[in-house]
């Protein structure tokens, strides 16, 4: 028996596959590849498969992790290649290896946030953004699990943020808390729209780049 972990990319069309649909899709991908997942032993057995940090629908990622268990004892060699033959467009397994570290060990997420300004980036936007995120408190409204709205301060959840400007585009390289609690980087564009309405973007795009542990070492 082996506890394994997949490192995979989720982008383009696949970024619209919801978490539950992705779990179903992977179960079938494993079967297509002839890999039998270990099942729970309960009355309604279900395959032992879990996605470490579910990605919001519409976002892309280079660093998704999926944990699973199989009956055979293996270090995972060859599994990525087999799985890649049966994946839908936009999913790509980069690696498969023994899950050595427990999922509770990751702490930070590096993401790239892109803000589109269709009619050009307003003058002084970068300075305004830098000023905004140097404050002690920037509040955004977030829908909680219980469907009501809560105000959260995003500043304590941001480890570092660097802004950059290109044509009709502002990008941020952000490192933020990933769990307990984590920050969805998309909320930063909401924060901009709320605090600096003149500089609200026309569209925001998020791509996860890396996961880190609490000492900022890569988490795999």
């Amino acid at each position, binding site marked *: 028996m082996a506890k394994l972990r997949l490192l995979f990319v989720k982008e383009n069309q696949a970024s619209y596959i*919801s978490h539950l*649909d992705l779990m179903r*899709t992977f179960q079938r991908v494993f*079967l297509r590849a002839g890999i039998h997942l270990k099942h729970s032993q309960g009355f309604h057995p279900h395959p032992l498969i879990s996605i470490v940090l579910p990605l919001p629908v519409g976002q892309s990622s280079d660093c998704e992790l999926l944990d699973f268990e199989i009956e055979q004892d293996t270090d995972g060699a060859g599994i990525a290649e087999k799985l890649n033959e049966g994946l*839908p*467009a936009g999913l790509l397994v980069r690696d498969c290896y023994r899950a050595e570290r427990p999922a509770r060990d990751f702490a930070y997420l590096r993401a790239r946030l892109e803000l589109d300004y269709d009619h050009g980036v307003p003058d002084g936007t970068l300075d305004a953004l830098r000023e905004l995120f140097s404050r002690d408190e920037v509040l955004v409204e977030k829908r909680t699990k219980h469907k009501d709205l809560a105000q959260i301060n995003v500043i304590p959840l941001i480890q570092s943020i660097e802004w950059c400007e290109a044509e009709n585009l502002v990008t941020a390289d952000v490192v933020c808390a990933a769990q307990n609690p984590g920050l969805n980087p998309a909320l930063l564009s909401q924060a901009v729209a709320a605090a600096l309405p003149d500089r609200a973007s026309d569209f925001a795009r998020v791509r996860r780049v890396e996961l880190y542990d609490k000492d900022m070492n890569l988490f795999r």
Partner: protein
Amino acid sequence: MDKRLERILPRVQKPARYVGGEYNAVMKDKARVDTRVAFCFPDTYEIGMSNLGMRILYGVMNNMDGVWCERCFHPWGDMEEEMRRAQMPLYALESGDPIGDFDVIAFSVGYEMAFPAMLNMLDLAGVPLRTSRREALSPLVIAGGTAMYNCEPIADFIDLALLGEGEEQIVELLELYRQAKREGWDKGAFLRRACHIGGVYVPSLYDVSYNDDGTVKAITPRDGAPARVRKRIVTDMDKAYYPAKTIVPSTEIVQDRVTLELFRGCIRGCRFCQAGYVYRPVRNRSKDLCAQYARESVEDSGYQEMTLSSLSTSDYRGLVELCDELEPFCEQKHLSLSLPSLRADNFSMALMERLQKGRKTGLTFAPEAGTQRLRDAINKNLTEDDLLESCRRAFAGGYSAVKLYFMLGLPTETDEDVAAIADVAAHVMHAWRESATNKNRGVRITVSTSWFVPKPHTAFQWEPQIPIEEYERRVALLRERINTKTVTYNWHPSPTSFMEAVISRGDRRLCDVLEAAFRKGAKLDAWEDYFSLPRWLEAFDECGLDPHFYANRRREHGEVMPWAHIDVGVSDAFLMREHDRCYEGVTTPDCRTKCSACGANCLIGRACDG
């Protein structure tokens, strides 16, 4: 990805259904393709992707060199609104290209109430609705599917219809189209040639005249078109293409499993059932081939569920042997088999007990009518004893829920027949008391009634639909009679069934009504979310037509039906005989017991596999 689409998708429900890219979706190099087909399904992705016919023809077309067939579905309302706001035309899922630029726009239509969705899809694609307004050869708008057996209500919108099974005729049609494109024929020349392909019906080559009372006087072919168009079928199911390697959606669809088609046609001959008549004659796929396709499909898709599909699966001759053969494979793959359209008889129950592993929830039976007299009149070969015996067996085996489906408004139905539905439910309840193994779990018996819609090409095509007031009176009558708490009575105040009765037997004059209803906002009218009866009534009013003329009028055997020139293989004489026998209360044996000479074997030139 299209920038407009990227902006829209975060705001709509279930965006995965609008992006394509699924496993086994066919991608081709545009430079090596000369004919592009947008295969459209006038309903949502979840419904369309559950359709086996769509998967078969997608495979058949994409197996042609130089042809690229892509899929296109009707967006849900939120997506449609966003697309219209962003001025984004309807696009095909594989390439993302607008379907208005394709060579062929092909619809698969199984249900009359999807007609408005077809019009809306053409409109979303920026294609003129009427064939007369589309002068160029492309885009050629064609349609197939069971709803085409009377396509007169959309005759003005489609360039041609494919009648029957499409596997062979679509290839012949696309080859002719490619020749037309190469040689620069105009659309008229193409259509005059196309009407000679077996199964191809070109509505514009037929003139329809009417009598003073509004009935059809004559349907006259022009320019050498055949007087009657006979549907096309695949004669040998073992040579028919089966999509063992097929698209596996990345989001949940309605039939999210492997669909293994065992045979086509049905031996039963229920007099109300359109599928039972229009899919004749019965043709089996051999057991070994079914088993092979089952293995291939499961291995390629990764599905762990498979449905053995047909109009009446327990009538498949080699069913037990097939299940024997598949059993070890199912065990090994943890695969569950399901049998739809189960008959309430001992054979089916034994088989189901064997196949059903794990959770036992509910069983569904369709006695259709409450008394034996009425079941005989509609030729539903089911006795109450069979039904009760099956229920006893199910309850003894641990089932605790039974659903029973009935129709109200069947020909010759009396109040006594309606009231007897309550008795059937009570007897099922009694069967539970007698045989349930665990009474603590209780029992749920659900009775559902629908409003009978007479369909073309059936023994009841001459029958009126009962008016809504009468339907509601019968519902009330039944509701009074059902007074046990364990029996739940479901019925729909469904005005959709009325419009269905109007459109399914409508003539060409309904094209104006359809367009008017569409202009007023009709689209996904198969969904109660979108259907509006007042909108339809207004449309009829504007066009000066009476919907009751189509739905509630008894037609004489001599009347020229709007679909008189469409030949499904079953003879008119046979349908009339079946209609008369209904009133005589005489049943007709199933095709296996005795051939009743319906005529459909003329399509295969031998006795059918009934």
